[in-house]
């Protein structure tokens, strides 16, 4: 019998390490013959820490939201006793959430120990690589990926086979296979999860790609903000090298391939291929004009192919199950599955992998369980700073590259941030512009100055200083920035503004003309008053008001002087009687 603990970053943040220490202590105290093992993230982050108890027959019972106090009960009552501890076990509806998915990229996540290559080998790991290296020609490999219809999962959705083919056909002996693991899109974390939970899937995918294009050297560009991912990946690379899956003369075919990690230093624009290459070369990560494409002139001017983590993680499955099996999933134009990070105001936040073609509604309500506190759904943000907000009226949109693009958002890397009635859409646009304005590399004037000007306008609007003509001015800037920027960052930076104006123009108008934020989120537009019925005169608000705007005697109704009030919200947060009203 063994105990398996989910120790992805989410699990650890929820207390998985403490749970592990507690288990170890109890096992030592009782002298039990029990192994405690690690696994990655199963995706149901809202249930972390998750603990599986697996008996010798392989039967698995999952306990969720385990605290250190629960560990003793699990050992004494469940493992040593007869109590099933139903109240700690995963519920039926949560099992359904996992059951409704189709897991290809996440096939091993949360099931195997990411720190042991033996676990990966036990689930047929590296068999696909062996097949590709020993039995297939580069042309056949590329053809299989073409049949599968795999598209780049990093955002742009470019056909993977096409890139591989271009790099393969590019003349030159030295070629590079690069993995973009610089997951910069705020709100997306599937790449981190794959790196932490199933690093060998990425290595195997890269190895197959390397064989296809003829690269002998690979580089994985990982965000420095993912320390655990870097540790597990390095460990996996070392083990793969030891077992002969990386290095010289792999599978005795004469083919050499080795991998190294390069830690990124934090720049969103490095998601752009040419910027990423500049960063790999130790320079400022600024994009350059294409062509030449990286497939012709990339890292150190050699042919280079760049794919993202999720794309590579699909590859081994495709070769074990066939390109047709992959293409059988999804829609006509978008094949296979896509991993989404469901976050924001959603009940069951986490990572879900679903076949393309499911609707947004299915994903958010069926799988994600709907909106927190059953509030009203307002919009879902897809594609991060390059994407847009999709309103409730379009919830039946299918998840498909073309369909999502039609709404004004993009598929992106798979962030789905769900928003309810308390989220202000103007503030959302301001939030993303604040991000892109910071992350603009500064090369193109339209992107550098344009995003700054747009942010200034949005700041004004959310502070109650919007002017007539602001919406039109924003739209004009948006189109000019799209046209005047060289790389994807600038070209897509206006999307959050354009989609919110398109679907939530009334909110912009409320802010500008009526000085009102219906979501009650933009503080300068709010008016704080005290409910005469509820106020007991405790004086907490008066004491905490930083500008002495509140008057009133003890045990009598207090009042806020609107001329002095700076709308900091202190009174609202300290009032224990809900008597401060925001309007």
């Amino acid at each position, binding site marked *: 019998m063994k105990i398996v603990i989910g120790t992805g*970053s*989410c699990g*650890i*943040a*929820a207390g998985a390490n403490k749970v592990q220490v507690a288990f170890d202590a109890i096992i030592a105290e009782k002298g039990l013959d029990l192994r405690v093992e690690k696994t990655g993230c199963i995706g149901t*982050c*809202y249930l*972390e820490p998750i603990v599986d108890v697996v008996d010798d027959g392989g039967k698995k019972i999952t306990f969720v939201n385990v605290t250190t106090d629960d560990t003793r009960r699990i050992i004494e009552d469940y493992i040593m006793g007869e109590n099933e501890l139903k109240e700690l076990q995963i519920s039926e509806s949560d099992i359904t959430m996992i059951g409704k998915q189709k897991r290809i990229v996440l096939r091993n996540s949360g099931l195997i120990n990411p720190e042991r290559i033996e676990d990966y080998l036990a689930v047929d790991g590296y068999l696909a690589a062996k097949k590709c290296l020993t039995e297939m020609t580069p042309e056949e490999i590329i053809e299989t990926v073409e049949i599968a219809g795999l598209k780049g999962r990093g955002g742009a959705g470019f056909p993977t086979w096409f890139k591989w083919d271009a790099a393969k056909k590019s003349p030159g002996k030295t070629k590079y296979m690069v993995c973009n693991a610089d*997951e*910069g*899109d*705020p*709100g*997306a*974390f599937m790449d*981190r999860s794959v790196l932490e939970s199933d690093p060998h899937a990425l290595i195997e995918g890269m190895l197959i790609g390397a064989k296809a294009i003829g690269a002998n050297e690979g580089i994985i560009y990982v*965000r*420095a*903000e*993912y*320390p655990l991912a870097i540790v597990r990946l390095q460990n996996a690379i070392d083990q793969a090298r030891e077992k002969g899956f990386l290095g010289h003369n792999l599978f005795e075919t004469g083919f050499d391939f080795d991998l190294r990690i*390069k*830690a*990124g*230093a*934090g*720049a*969103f624009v490095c998601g752009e291929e040419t910027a990423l290459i500049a*960063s*790999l*070369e*130790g*320079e*400022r*990560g*600024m994009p350059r004009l294409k062509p030449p494409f990286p497939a012709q002139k990339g890292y*150190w001017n050699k042919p280079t192919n760049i794919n993202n983590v999720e794309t590579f993680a699909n590859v081994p499955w495709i070769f074990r199950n066939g390109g047709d099996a992959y293409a059988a999933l999804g829609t006509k134009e978008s094949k296979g599955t896509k991993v989404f*990070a*469901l*976050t*924001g*105001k959603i009940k069951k*936040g*986490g*990572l879900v992998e679903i076949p393309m073609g499911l609707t947004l509604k299915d994903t958010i309500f069926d799988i994600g369980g709907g909106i927190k506190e059953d509030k009203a759904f307002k919009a879902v*943000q897809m594609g*991060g700073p390059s994407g847009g907000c999709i309103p409730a009226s379009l919830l039946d949109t299918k998840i498909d590259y073309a369909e999502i693009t039609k709404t004004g958002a993009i598929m992106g890397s798979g*962030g789905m*941030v*769900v*928003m309810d009635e308390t*989220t202000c859409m103007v503030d*959302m646009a301001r*939030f*993303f512009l604040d*991000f892109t304005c910071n*992350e603009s*590399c500064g090369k193109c004037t339209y992107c550098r100055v344009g995003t700054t000007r747009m942010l200034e306008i949005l700041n004004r609007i959310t502070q109650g200083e919007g002017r007539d003509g602001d919406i039109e001015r924003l739209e004009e800037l948006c189109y000019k920035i799209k046209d005047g920027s060289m790389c994807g960052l600038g070209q897509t930076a206006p999307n959050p503004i354009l989609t919110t104006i398109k679907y939530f123009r009334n909110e912009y108008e409320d802010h500008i003309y009526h000085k009102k934020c219906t979501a009650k989120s933009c503080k300068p537009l709010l008016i704080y008053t005290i409910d005469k019925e509820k106020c007991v005169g405790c004086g907490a608000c008066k004491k905490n008001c930083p500008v002495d705007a509140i008057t009133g005697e003890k045990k009598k109704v207090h009042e806020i002087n609107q001329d002095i009030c700076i709308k900091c919200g202190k009174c609202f*947060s300290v009032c224990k009687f809900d008597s401060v009203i925001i309007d």
Partner: protein
Amino acid sequence: MSHETREHHHEHGCGCGCQGERANPFAELSPILDHYADIPGSLITILQKAQELYGFLSVELMRYIALETHTSIAKVYGVATFYTQFRFKPVGKYLVMLCQGTACHVNGSKLVEEAVMDFLEIKEGETTADGLFTLNNVACLGCCSLSPVMMINDDTYGQLTKDKAIHILAELKEVASNETAGLATIEQEVIT
């Protein structure tokens, strides 16, 4: 007084800030510089290792790296300031990184930030007077389903509320004050 390091002669006015008077202040960096000397494109990696060693990149340190790697100080500074990971001021014992990603924003990271700033009495990017805490906003820590999130040194804390965030900081503060108190006692014992 002058001395040699890897390809650089230190003396008064040599440009690396040592004035030739002190022993090489960045001697610990030498093995790293040696290791990466022949690997092109290693500037970012060298800067990362340097920051790991010294906590932040001072002008002197960047000037030294420029000299040792035969690059201009402008390039080193240009690369360092391009990336958010690099810091140019000393940081406190605890580096508090408040996630400002989309999910955190939607779930109220601003409120947490305000509470933390009130509690520590500093603004974003500053360090407390006692040198314990530095507060930084970061783009996304990738723990979106536990938002709002913050990371203190290597530990991640999720599902924050104003109270929870302050509680965590207060605990760290207490641990630190106990440590110094402990040190004081040890010192006293030594004296007596």
